[in-house]
C-alpha cells in the first residue's frame, strides 16, 4: 500500500530499542504564504528569523506558567520515554516525549537560563539554527498532543503544551503546516472545516430527513438555524459528510426526536472543531470559538450540546467558559456546554428513551477512549465520568461489549495516531505507525472476544481508523460512532 512497513502486532507490548533518525524524513506540507497571512502570520521567513523565534519563545514562556514550569522541571528520569505511541510505533528516539521537549528546551536553555548561556555543551543547550528549525518542523508534527506522557510524568509535564508552543513560534516566523492552517482558514471563510457552504449543508440535512423517513417511516427533523430552539448542537462537520460520522448525527437527531426537545444546528457555527488549539494560537482559538457564542445568542437557545469530537470537547469543556463565557444567557440548570453523551445518558437515566439492545446483536463492541476526552476533559459530575458515561450509553444500546486491556483504555488510552492536526495524507507513514499500540490492543479483543465494532466519539479518531484499520488487516468499516449504536437501538414511535 505504501513505501513503508506496517509495524507488526504482537502478543505482548514490546518497548522498541532506540533507532535514531527513522522518522527524520517525516514532514507535513508547508503552508503557502497567503494561507499564513489569512491567519495573521507573516508570509515569508523574516531576515532575522532566528532572533524573532527566540524572542517569541521568551514571550510564550512569560505568558504560560505551564510552559515555564515544564521547561525548567524535567529531570530526565525517563519515565515518559516508553509512553508515546509514536515512539512505540517508530522507535525514533526523538519521538520519546522528553526528547521531543528537549528540541525546544535546548533552545530555551541557551537563551533563557544561566547554565545554558555559560555552559551550553554541558546542559545540552543549542543555538537557534536552520537545522534546529527543520527538526522542530519534523518532530513537532509527530506529536498528536494526546497528553499520554503527562499522565505518567512525575511533574505532569505535558509535551502537548510544548509542541503547541513550538508550532506557534514557527507560525510566527511564517513556517506553518498546510493541513491545519488551511482548515482554520476555511472555518473563517466558509464556516466549517470541510468548506461546506450553507446551501449544501441544508441540502445534506434535508437528504438525511428523507433517508430516515424512508428507513423508519418517522419524521425526524434535522433543523438548521431555527430560532427559539431549546438546544444548539455544535458538532464536527465530518458528521454532515461521511460514514461513519453521519450515523452519529442521525443518532443525535433520533434522541432529540424521542425526547421531544427542540434543537437546531447553526450555519454560522457549523463546526465544533477548533484546530487553532493544535497550532497553539490563542487569538485564533478565541476567534473560532466566538462564532459559537454568536450563534447561541442569535438563535436564542437555552442550552448548548456538543457532538462527538475529541479535541472539540476539550476546547468546549475546558476553554469555552474562559474564551467565550460567561454563559449567563443560557439555562443555568444545565452544564454549559454539555456533551451529547451526557445528554443522552441523562435521558436514559430518566427513562426517556426506548432502546432495544438486540437491534445491535450483530455487533460485538469495544470502545476507544479518545485522548482529549480522556485526559483533557470530563463528563458528568465525578472525575472519570468521561470513561463511565460513553460506556453506559453503549451498554444501554448493545448486548455485547468488551473493553480493551487496562493499560490501553481510560487515562492510559493510546491515541488513534491521527490527532493534533496530523490527520493528513502527507503524514500517512506516521499515522499508520503511530496507530500500532492501539491496533495491538484491538487485536487482542478481536481474537479473544470476536469484537467487530470499534466505537469512538471523535471525528478525527473515526477518520483515522477508517484509514489505518486496513493496514493492520482489519475491515475499515469496523469503526463507528457511539450514537450510531444508539441510532440502531432506539425504537422510534414508542415514546414520543
Amino acid at each position, binding site marked *: 500500500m505504501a513505501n513503508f512497513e506496517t509495524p507488526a502486532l504482537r502478543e505482548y507490548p514490546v*518497548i522498541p530499542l532506540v533507532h*535514531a533518525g527513522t522518522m527524520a524524513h517525516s514532514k507535513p506540507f508547508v503552508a503557502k504564504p497567503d494561507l499564513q497571512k489569512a491567519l495573521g502570520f507573516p508570509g515569508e521567513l523574516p531576515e532575522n528569523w532566528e532572533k524573532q523565534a527566540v524572542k517569541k519563545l521568551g514571550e510564550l514562556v512569560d*505568558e*504560560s*506558567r*505551564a510552559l515555564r*514550569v*515544564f521547561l*525548567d*522541571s524535567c*529531570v*530526565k528520569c*525517563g*519515565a515518559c*520515554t*516508553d509512553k508515546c505511541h509514536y515512539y512505540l510505533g517508530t522507535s525514533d*528516539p526523538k519521538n*520519546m516525549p*522528553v*526528547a521531543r521537549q528537549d528540541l525546544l528546551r535546548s533552545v530555551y536553555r541557551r537563551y533563557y*537560563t*544561566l*547554565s545554558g548561556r555559560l*555552559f551550553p555543551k*554541558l*546542559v*545540552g543547550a543549542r543555538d537557534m539554527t536552520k537545522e534546529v528549525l527543520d527538526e522542530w518542523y519534523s518532530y513537532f508534527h509527530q506529536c498528536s498532543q494526546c*497528553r499520554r506522557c503527562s499522565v*505518567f*510524568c*512525575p*511533574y*505532569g*509535564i*505535558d509535551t502537548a503544551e510544548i509542541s503547541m508552543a513550538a508550532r506557534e513560534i514557527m507560525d510566527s516566523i511564517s513556517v506553518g503546516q498546510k493541513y491545519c492552517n488551511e482548515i482554520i482558514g476555511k472555518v473563517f471563510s466558509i464556516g466549517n472545516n470541510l468548506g461546506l457552504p450553507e446551501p449544501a449543508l441544508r441540502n445534506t440535512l434535508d437528504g438525511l430527513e428523507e433517508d430516515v423517513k424512508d428507513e423508519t417511516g418517522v419524521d425526524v427533523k434535522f433543523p438548521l438555524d431555527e430560532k427559539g430552539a431549546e438546544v444548539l448542537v455544535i458538532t464536527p462537520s465530518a458528521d454532515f459528510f461521511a460514514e461513519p460520522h453521519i450515523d452519529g448525527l442521525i443518532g443525535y437527531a433520533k434522541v432529540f426526536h424521542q425526547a421531544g426537545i427542540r434543537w437546531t444546528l447553526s450555519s454560522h457555527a457549523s463546526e465544533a472543531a477548533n484546530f487553532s488549539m493544535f497550532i497553539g494560537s*490563542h487569538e485564533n482559538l*478565541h476567534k473560532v470559538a466566538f462564532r459559537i*457564542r*454568536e450563534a447561541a*445568542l442569535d438563535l436564542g437557545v437555552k442550552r448548548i450540546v456538543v457532538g462527538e469530537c475529541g479535541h472539540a470537547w476539550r476546547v468546549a469543556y*475546558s*476553554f469555552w*467558559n*474562559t*474564551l*467565550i*463565557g*460567561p*454563559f*449567563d444567557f443560557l439555562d443555568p440548570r444545565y*452544564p*454549559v*456546554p454539555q456533551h451529547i453523551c451526557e445528554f443522552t445518558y441523562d435521558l436514559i437515566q430518566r427513562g426517556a428513551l426506548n432502546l432495544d439492545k438486540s437491534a445491535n446483536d450483530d455487533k460485538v463492541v469495544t470502545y476507544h477512549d479518545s485522548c482529549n476526552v480522556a485526559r*483533557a*476533559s*470530563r463528563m458528568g459530575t465525578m*472525575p472519570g465520568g*468521561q*470513561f463511565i458515561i460513553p460506556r453506559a450509553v453503549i451498554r444501554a444500546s448493545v448486548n455485547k461489549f468488551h473493553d480493551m486491556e487496562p493499560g490501553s483504555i481510560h*487515562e492510559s488510552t493510546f491515541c488513534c495516531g491521527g490527532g493534533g492536526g496530523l490527520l493528513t495524507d502527507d503524514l500517512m507513514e506516521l499515522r499508520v505507525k503511530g496507530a500500532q499500540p492501539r491496533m495491538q490492543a484491538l487485536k487482542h479483543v478481536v481474537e479473544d472476544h470476536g469484537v467487530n465494532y470499534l466505537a469512538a466519539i471523535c471525528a478525527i479518531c473515526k477518520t483515522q481508523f477508517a484509514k489505518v484499520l486496513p493496514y493492520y488487516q482489519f475491515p475499515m468499516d469496523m469503526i463507528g460512532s457511539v450514537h450510531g449504536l444508539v441510532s440502531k437501538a432506539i425504537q422510534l414511535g414508542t415514546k414520543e
Partner: protein
Amino acid sequence: MSTVTIIYAVLFYVATVVLVGGLAYKVYVFACTPAPLKIPTTPAPVTRLGVVGRMLREVTVFESLFKSNKWIWLFGILFHFALLLVLLQHLRYFTQPVWSWVVLEQPFGIYAGFIMVVGLLGLWGRRFVVDRVRYISNLSDHLMLALLVAIALSGLMMKFVFHTNIIGLKEFFLGLLSFNPQPLPADPVLLVHLALVATLMIVFPMSKLLHAPGVFFSPTRNQVDNPREQRHVAGWSASIHNPGGR
C-alpha cells in the same frame, strides 16, 4: 583564623544566599507567570481539597511515577526519603541543644546514607543500561548524580572510616549562624564533603533540581477540574470581554 576557615565561611554564606535567593526568585517567577487556560490532566479532582490530596500523593508517594515505571519509582523513592532522613539527621550540627526528635532520628539518618547511595546508583545505572535513558542523558545529568554520590560517600566515610572532629564542625556552623565564625577543623574528607555540598546549593536554583518547587506549580497537577462551574481567567485570557450576554 585560618585561610581555610575564611574560605569556607564565605563559601557557605554565598551558597546560602544563592540557594535561598535563587529559589525565592524562581518561585516568585513561577507564581507570577499566569496560567491562562484550564489544563489539568484528567481525571482530576473537582475540588481544591482534592487537589491538595493529589499534590500530597505526588510528593510523598510519587503517584504518577509509580504508575509509570516501578524501577525509577523504587530508586527515586529510596533516594529521596533517605536524603530526607539524612538532612534531618544533619540538623544536629546546626542546633544547640539538639532537638530531642533529631536525637531519636539519628540512627535512621546514619543508615539512610547507604540507602541514598543505593538509590542514586540505581538511577545512575539506568542512564547506562537502558538505551532510551542513555539517549536523553546530558553530561550535566551524569555530573549531578556524581555530585550527589560523592557527597553521600564522603559523608559516610567520615562516619565509618575517618572520624572527623564533629565538635569543631558544629562550632563552625553555630558560629556561622550567629555571624561569629569559629575555626573549621582542617580535615581533608570534611573539606571535600563541605565543598561539594556548597556546590550543590549553588547549582540548585539553576538546574533541573528546580523540579522540587516546580511540581507544586505544574498546572496539569495543581488545577481544579471545574471549568464549567467556574469561569477561569488569567493572563491573556483575563483581557477577553465578550459582548452580548445578559
